[in-house]
């Protein structure tokens, strides 16, 4: 319990943030790969 409390204190919960940026990164990667495969 004390461990959980401490991790909450140290760092805010940012799972939504993490998934959001991963989606952004995935979109960018898909666009790049699409152009490379489709046009190069």
């Amino acid at each position, binding site marked *: 319990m004390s461990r959980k409390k401490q991790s909450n204190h140290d*760092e*805010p919960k*940012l*799972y939504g*943030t*993490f998934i959001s*940026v*991963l989606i952004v*990164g995935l979109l960018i*990667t898909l666009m*790049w790969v699409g152009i*490379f495969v489709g*046009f*190069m």
Partner: protein
Amino acid sequence: MHVHKLEKVWLAIGFITLVAFLTTVGIQAFASGQGAPSGLTKVDPENVEETPPFDDPGLHQIGENEYELVMILQSYGFTPNEVTIPEGATVHFKITSKDVVHGFEIAGTTVNMMATPGHVNETTYTFDEAGSFLILCNEYCGTGHHLMSAELEVE
């Protein structure tokens, strides 16, 4: 300065992705020799027609279905402006400009390079499909810029 654990992971993923992109284009450019056109040969723009290979512009066969295409660009035209090549031909383009900066683009292909006065630029492309290709200038070169084009027939 505190960096959130998930931000570290995110930056690491981003970094690895970028390295992967760079490696991919790097291998294609330097190992397979399909890099960006970067001709380093110089030519006097005021004596282009007296300087080889531009003293004989046009298509020259240099191997089996392999050609060199020498072209001179000036406002607002290409010399020559009609070229016919066989299907499957590999063409080595050598171009230069007699006046201002021009672009050399074959629409729908990756043949796309700048022609700056004073330099020869070069690229290579294999035409695997027959058809009528449009060569156009894609850098503004004066008020007739949109009239500057040529045709490449692949038969």
